[in-house]
Structure formats: C-alpha cells, structure tokens
C-alpha cells in the first residue's frame, strides 16, 4: 500500500485579471503551502511588483477574506487571490 | 415576489432611480422613480433605502381601482385610471407611493421590473419571494 505523502501541503493561488496570463490563462493553480506569497509569485515568474493586493481566504478559520502582505506565509488549504495593479488614482 | 434592500450596502449612487424612471416613464429623470434613497450626512453617514414591499395597502384604498394586480402578482399603477386623489400616498407604510403634480399627471409606484437590481453595483437590491410577515 502506498502511504499518502503528508509532508508537502497544498494551497490555491487565484491570479486575477491580466495576471492569469502568467499561468497560461487558467483561473487557479495549486501551490505548495509553507512559502511566502512573494516566494510563490516569483516561483511562477509573476513579478511581485505588479501585484497590488493579496487577499487570503484561510481554510482553517473559515472567516472572511483578509488582506495580507506578500510576506504572509501561505497555509494549507488557503485560497490566495492576487490582484494586479491596473490603474491607480 | 417583491423587492428587497439592504441599506447598509447602499452607496447613494441613484443608478436605481434613473433605471426606474426609464422603466416607468421612458425618461431620464430620477425624481420620477419609485424607490427612495435617503442620505443621512454628515452623520451618521449612511443611506436609508425604501422600497415597495408589494403589501397592497395602496390598492386597497384606491377609489378608482387604478392600482391593479398584474398576472405576476405585482401591484402597479394604471396611469390611465389614476385621478390624482392621493389617497394612496399616506397609506404606504414605506413612503414609496408618489404623487408630484409638477412631474406627472398620475401617481406612480414600483412595478417590480427589476432594472434597479441590474444596475446596483453593491448588490443592495434583490428580488425574492415575499416572506410571511412576522407576527
């Protein structure tokens, strides 16, 4: 019997709008938990600088979404939305 | 069915009222709308929305039977039958029966067209089944 791999835990990244082009147009992608948002973005070749807003819906607490900084460490089951800076004032 | 509102979500934009006047009168004139947006500024800093709950109190008092029930179960004003007696206005518990002689020669009210819901960006308005009134 194969044992399930419990070491690597997963979360979901949902790039919004134009950022989807960085993940071949898909609406979401599974990512490894335990890294910062910044590291995760860089690993996907999304320049952290073009992301204006990080909103996390944490699976664990089930409370409403919260804005987080790019230094936030992604937890298992989190759904992390990232929005591009489109325009500004 | 009836219109519902959540005042806490209202931004005071009045898009609903333009859509409403377009539906009722084919005019761009939100003063001829059948929904009330009441601003309370500078304090407490909120908008108070009043909508028709389709209670039928207006129809019950109309002496010319100008306020009718359509085949969707919605109360509306038949403009041709209204004689501007204004009996309906004080009857409305929400204050959304309108008579303004300078604007129109008929009373008007919500006919549940739903255009207000379509233009409300904050989802402060929606249409759903009438809930039984709590005792």
């Amino acid at each position: 019997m194969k044992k399930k791999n419990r070491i690597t835990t997963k979360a979901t990244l949902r790039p919004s709008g134009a950022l989807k082009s960085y993940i071949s147009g898909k609406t979401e992608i599974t990512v490894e938990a335990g890294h910062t948002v910044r590291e995760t973005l860089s690993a996907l070749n999304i320049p952290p600088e073009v992301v204006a807003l990080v909103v996390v819906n944490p699976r664990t607490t089930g409370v409403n979404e919260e804005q987080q900084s790019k230094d936030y460490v992604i937890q298992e089951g989190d759904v992390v939305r990232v929005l591009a800076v489109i325009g500004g004032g | 069915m009836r219109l519902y509102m959540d005042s806490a979500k209202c931004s005071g934009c009045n898009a609903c009222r333009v859509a409403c006047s377009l539906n009722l009168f084919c005019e761009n004139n939100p003063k001829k709308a059948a929904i009330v947006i009441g601003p309370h500024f500078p304090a407490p800093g909120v908008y108070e929305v009043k909508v028709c709950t389709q209670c039928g109190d207006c129809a019950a008092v109309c002496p010319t039977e100008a306020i009718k029930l359509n085949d969707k179960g919605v109360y509306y004003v038949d403009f041709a039958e209204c004689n501007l007696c204004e009996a309906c206005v004080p009857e409305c518990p929400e204050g959304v029966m309108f008579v303004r002689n300078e604007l129109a020669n008929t009373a008007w009210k919500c006919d549940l067209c739903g255009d207000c819901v379509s233009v409300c960006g904050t989802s402060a308005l929606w249409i759903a089944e009438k809930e039984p009134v709590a005792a």
Partner: protein
Amino acid sequence: MNGYGGQILHVNLTTGKITKEPTPPDVVRDFIGGRGFGAYFLFKEVPTNADPLGPANKLIISSGPFSGLMIPGAGKCDFTTKSPLTGGYASASMGGHFTAEIKYAGLDSIILEGISPRPVYLFIDDDKVELRDAADLWGKGTIVVEKHFKEKLGEEFQVAVIGPGGENGVSYACINHDFGRQAGRGGVGTVMGVKKVKAVVVHGTKSIPVADMEGYRKAGMALYKACKDAEGLKDWTRYGTTIVTSWCDEVGALPTRNFSAGSFEGGKGLYGQTMREKIVITDKGCFGCPSPCGKYSRSKKYNIHVEGPEYETIGLMGSNLGIDDIEAVAQANLLCDDLGIDTISTGNAIGWAMECYEKGILTKKDTDGLELKFGNVEATFKLIEKIARREGFGALLAEGVKRASKKIGKGSEKFAIQVKGMEQSAYATHNATAMLLAYMTCDVGAHHNRSWAITYDLQVGRDKVVPEKVARVIWLQNFRPMFDVLGGCRLQWVELGIDRDLYCPALEAITGVQRSWEDLEKVGARIWNLTRMYWGRENEGFGRQWDMPSPRFYEEAPTTGATKGQITKFEDVHKLLDMYYEQRGWTSEGIPTAATLEQLGLAELVA
C-alpha cells in the same frame, strides 16, 4: 439637444446680469462637453493676461453628455479657470451629484464672471436663476453650509460650496460638495471666493433627452453588467483608491517626508486594510457609480465623520509628513474639507515646511512657535487652520510651495516638489520615468490624473528612457481625460478593467453622433494642445523650463526604502522631453507647431 441640458448660463457678478444661450453645436462637435467646454470657453472668453483674481477671469462649470444618465460613473463635473496658483490652465474634476442636477435644470455649463460687490450664492431651480445674499453664510465651514442648504431648500438641491480657504484667498482653495467630494486643485475655489460666490445650489426637474432610447438603455445595461461582472469589483469597492497604498509603499512610490523617499517605515498604519478596520463605515458613491470608491469614515479618536481619506490625502498628509496614524490623517482630511483647501497641495506645502524646519532654514520664530518636525500631528492640524485663514506663518504656505520657497530661499526651492507652480501629488518619482514625465507634462501642473503610468514603468523597466514609454504617457493623456469631457468617471475602465468599447454605443445612442475612441482621442489631443497654447499665451517665455521637475528627482536618491540609491539622470529628464515634444508635434521648446494645430483644427481658434 440629445444628451445635453441645452443651455449655457452666464452670470455677471459685477452687474448681476444673468443670461442664457443655447449650447453652441459647433463647440459640442469639436469639444463635446465637460472639460472640453472648460478649455474652449477659457481660451475664447477670458482675455489674455487676465488677473486670475480679477473680474475678467471666469469660472466655467460644465457637465458632459454622460452626466445624469444611466451610465456607470455618470457623476463628474468640470471646473475650469485661470489658476491663481500657477498662472496657467486649471481644471478640477468633482464627483458626486452636482453634474447630474445641472443637466436636469436644462444646463450644460455655468459661467461665472466679474466680482460680486457682496457675498452671494447662485440659486438655480429649473428656469429660476437668482443671486441671493450669502452674508450669513460667509465665514462658515463647508459642511455646515451644505447641511443648511439641504435643510432649508430640500434634499434634492445639490450644493457646491467654498470654505474660509476660498474666502481668504488661499491659492489652492477648493470647492466642496456632497459632504466629501471636491473640485480640488489649482485654486478653483480661490476664484470662486474672490468673486464672492459662497455657493452654487442647483435643482432641476427636466428629463434629459436621448437620440435612441432603446439603444441607450441596452448599452447602459451592458456597461453595468460589465462592471458587476468585473473580477476586482468587490476588492475595489472595499478599499477604493486605498487599494494602492501598500503597493506604493512596496515599490517606492509612497511620498515620504517631503518626497525624500518612496517608502515609509510607518506605512502599515496607513494601509487600506488598517483604514477599513479602524474607521470606514460606508462605501459612498457618485451619481450612477456601481463601484463606489468613497470611504465614508468615523474616527472615534477624533470624534469626526469624514469622506476619506483617499490615497492622495493618505500620501500627502500621512507618509509625506511622517505621520503613521490613519485617524490623524482622517482628521487632517476633515479640516481641509471643511475649511475648503486642497489636501494635496496642503500636505505637500506642509511637508516642505517641515523639511525647512528640520534643516534649520525655518525656526520657531518663523513658524509662530509651531514645532514643525516630521510626525508632529498637532502642529499639522494647527498649521492647516493657519493656512486656511492666511494667518501668520500660514499666509506664506497659502501662496503655494513655489512662491513660498522663492521667498524663503536658502536652497529651499530645490525641495519645493512642484511643476509649473502646482504641488506634486502622491507618487514619488525618483526612479519611475514614465510617471515623472507624466507629472512634468500634465496640463495643469504636477497632477497624476491625466496619465497614471507607474505600472507601465514597472512592466517596461523603471529607468528605461525609451520612445514606447513616452508614447504610453501621450496616449493616456489623450484618452483618460476624455472621461472628464464626457462628464463621467474613468475609474470603471481604470480599476475594473471593463472594455472601453462598451462606451461608444452608449455615447452614440445618447447623442445621436457616432464617435470611436480614435475620434475621442483626437478631441483629447485637440484639448491638450489648446491648453498648451493657453499656457504659452498667458506666460511670457513659456517653454521647456516650465516642464522641468523638482531637482529632488534627479539629484537626491533616497537613502531608505524600495528606491534606495535610485535616481533619474538629469540628461534623461531632457531626453524624455525631447521625445515627448517630438511625438506631440511640438517644437524643441515644447510649443505646438503650426502643422500640429492645423491637423487638430485649432489654427483659427488660436490665431
């Protein structure tokens, strides 16, 4: 006229004469409305070298074809005048519900000229137009005066009102409306104040005609659907422009301590999330807007209600002053709103004063005893009051940083962060050449709203000085202000990313005239060149030197933050202007050539 109120209202405040003319179809054809009308009437009707504070200057208030209709963001009103702050073209855009009411009263523009012998307010109720005595209101704050009119005349009246700032002649006084919206920049409120007009109140019951009712309703609904379907709608509505505060801090665009850096160690206290949690109570929107950016707030700390602060005020009254408390910024915001002075210019001017103080160029003797160290919240509040009343040290700052720094000297001119005499708004541009160029070439002075190009800098490379960047700035300058011309808001396109092609069928159905975005951008270029010619007409020796940025951005690299050690090269400043002038069809001194004016149909008007 389909899509229009139909008449221009002329008010001569010196004589009291009030007249109307039908809105000229050729002006509609070439300038469309809103800011386009403002530019046209300014150039045509205000005599050359008019004193901005004199009777010959005019305040031109204009709605546009979208205003008051079922179009997302149909709530913007343009205020154009000759600026008492810069001596050139001023145009300020005010949201809320005022512009719609102008149309319901059957008007497109209201033009105020002359000077009233005593304080008045302009009363418009459909066809009834009167100048009424405002002696009892003179000296009062904008909030209580708007409340007074709402109670006395009725909630349906829309009010545009100045505060003590405008009455006292602060060079950057603003005009207030709807308990939190402003026509902010360039001293439009100053002009209203010198003309002794306390307020304009308007009420109208007419319906706005459109050419194709069915087509307009369909196109309008399509626009609302696009907005409601936009992915970022919920986030944008939650934060408004404060959505960029944390990002600006991260990329070094957040003005810190008089633009000496682009990141602020206290930034977290100002971020959108912090503000939402601490003070925001209502998402407040302009006419027709599905994505309300207004964050109406209640600060328990200061026991106030205020609309805002929005990003610009957070930048200039927060990080720019070394203040890290969003509630203090909210209080500063309210003081400026109530007193009627522009938060951007005020914050910028105070930041300059603080740097002077920290450097010993100014001492307590000069500042009426105020300790103007960065971060001093109480001194900031006191100074705002002094500026609005032009009292003591406040009188110097009330002239704007360009004039103030010229008077003080001692090197302080080098850190007066302004272009053409207008204080720079809240993007630090040490190393963001597209945005720097945007500030240098903006038609009213250093304001960001024509061409917000920072993301482009990041995409292409911050310090790159390439023709594509210049082309981008020019395109944004021709395109974005067209929303001001149409009497609507650009933020649905800017922030929600809706397809701009959805606007064209709406505009055609409303006005009966088909215009593509190419057509509209040509009108944008026409207005851009006209107002450039206006600057040249009113300012002897106008040219390249007037487009130069503050030396801070090519001499003083920040020592902290995301742009630490980064600075623009001086020769690149000129290289940017070289490319810009060439692409614009201007001479090497930045003056539109005859060929360019001809191509835009301006040859006759500017002759």
